């Protein structure tokens, strides 16, 4: 299955108002979930320059003015959920639905904590760790990069 096939399936889903599609073969599985208009456009969601939001703040070699970064707790790397991909972060399966997780919720490695949308495909992101959500680090519908911390947890 390549990008063309995936796009064809998405078009079919749109045309027939299908919101979920799942296909599993021997060594391949794909799940597509449509978010109705208004919630899913990466281009519309991203509307301001985000110098400070991307990754580590630049080393101060004088080349870039330091952009204000939000105050953060000292990181504990083993209790953070980091983004495995690049895309747009969504807290809930759809704009009207409740977020997958919130502060205080206990998660297991298999718990879906958010969606990251890339190239019009919604990817469910699993926690991969066990713990209790202590902080949600990214706002809904904001772009995220590889390795960016999404949630901070405390031990269960």
């Amino acid at each position, binding site marked *: 299955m390549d990008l063309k096939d995936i796009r064809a399936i998405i078009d079919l889903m749109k045309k027939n108002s299908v919101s979920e599609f799942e296909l599993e073969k021997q060594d391949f599985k794909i799940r597509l979930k449509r978010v109705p208009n208004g919630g899913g456009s990466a281009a519309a969601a991203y509307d301001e*320059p985000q*110098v400070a939001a*991307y990754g*580590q703040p630049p080393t101060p070699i004088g*080349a870039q003015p330091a952009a204000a970064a939000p105050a953060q707790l000292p990181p504990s790397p083993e209790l953070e959920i980091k983004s495995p991909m690049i*895309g747009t972060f969504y807290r809930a399966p759809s704009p009207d639905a409740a977020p997958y997780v919130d502060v205080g919720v206990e998660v297991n490695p298999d718990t879906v904590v958010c969606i990251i949308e890339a*190239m019009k495909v919604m990817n469910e992101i699993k926690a991969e760790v066990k713990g209790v959500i202590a902080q949600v680090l990214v706002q809904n519908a904001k772009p995220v990069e590889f390795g960016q911390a999404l949630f901070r947890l405390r031990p269960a």
Partner: protein
Amino acid sequence: MFEKILVANRGEIAVRIIRACKELNIRTVAIYSEADANSMHVQLADEAICIGKAPASESYLRIDRIVSAAEITDVDALHPGYGFLAENGHFADVCESCNIRFIGPNSRAMSALGDKALSRALAKRADVPTPPGSEGVVDTEQDALAVAKRIGYPVMIKAVAGGGGRGMRVAHNDISLVKGFHTARSEAEKAFGNSGVYFEKYIENAHHIEFQVLGDHKGNVIHLGERDCSIQRRNQKVVEECPSPLLNNPKFRKLREKMGKAAIRIAKEANYTNAGTVEFLVDSEGNYYFLEMNKRIQVEHPITEEVTGIDLVRYQIMLAMGEPLRLSTSDVQVRGHAIECRINAEDPFDDFRPSPGRIEMYYQPGGRGVRVDSHIYAGYTIPPTYDSMLGKLITYGRDRREAMDKMSRALSEYMITGIKTTISFEQAILQDPNFRRGVYSTSFVDQLLSGARRELME
């Protein structure tokens, strides 16, 4: 006009592209692996996106991640630089299908020239001579021996999917041919995912001369003169110059024009657009042979820029925007002489062992006619995961003598401590009497090094 461009590369070429964008008032997005978080191109771009861990296979070669980064930053176009995905037709297609203009040739031109065996066939159609060789891929040991018998030793075994000087070995007789044939195939499979090899007559003591071409979407193709890149170590270019001292020899007066026209025929046969380079080998008799065409901006593009006054990366961007070429080949004036030295983090006294690490002190040369294209700075740590090139030192003079004198002067000023560099090696090349006379070939570096080794041992 493009408003925003994503630079899909790293190191000095990413800095080069960002500079061209800034001069055109185009905003830039840098992508970087975790190992490059402190790299200069990340600092200079308007926005930066981390796309993965250090290995290129998890970052700079990840089409999905690069295109995702392009989408969330809403860029109009993407510049692939050189290496990585620059000559990947599939990547060009994915970009275009996502409405991101790929700054380079279209994927059809890439496929026509991608496979080395295919491009030999293309050269034939364009009536351009190629070195005697196999007609396509050599599949069996029997075929290998038959081809070698027909073209005569020494024979160069090349990977069809190779590039940048990799995947090549020379055989001087049947025994080394059979051994080399099998080894080359398994190496090619591992390195390029394609075990196909083809043969060419190895042309000894040749000059490697390449022509810079530009093509627009209307089918116009021009060339901007040649670069001589014969000074190579293990098929990696070390010093390049423009124009070629060989082609300035009155004995070969007509060669430049003939080769330039051949380069244009090759590009037109491939329906080539944007910037590219047609590579030739020229033997001591003045016979020229087409080697391959590089479908990207090249490392040594600055020397062409210095002698022609044309900004090649800017032209790439303009051509990608759909601008037609407003120059003809005869409009291009080559004035003066330019030389480039590639400065690598390698120890020339320890068989050029790579020397990654932290740069303590950094002072780059300057003054009239000196250009440095580099991404490094004092305090920067060279990651071990990528190539060892620190930057390029380019000098320009009114003639070859002035360019050489400036290069020696500039090399002697260049201070980089904390790591080993090839600066002293390049200084030895610039001081060599044969180099100064302009008399050299692709065997120059080997001869220089074996002479130097003998001296060290005595």
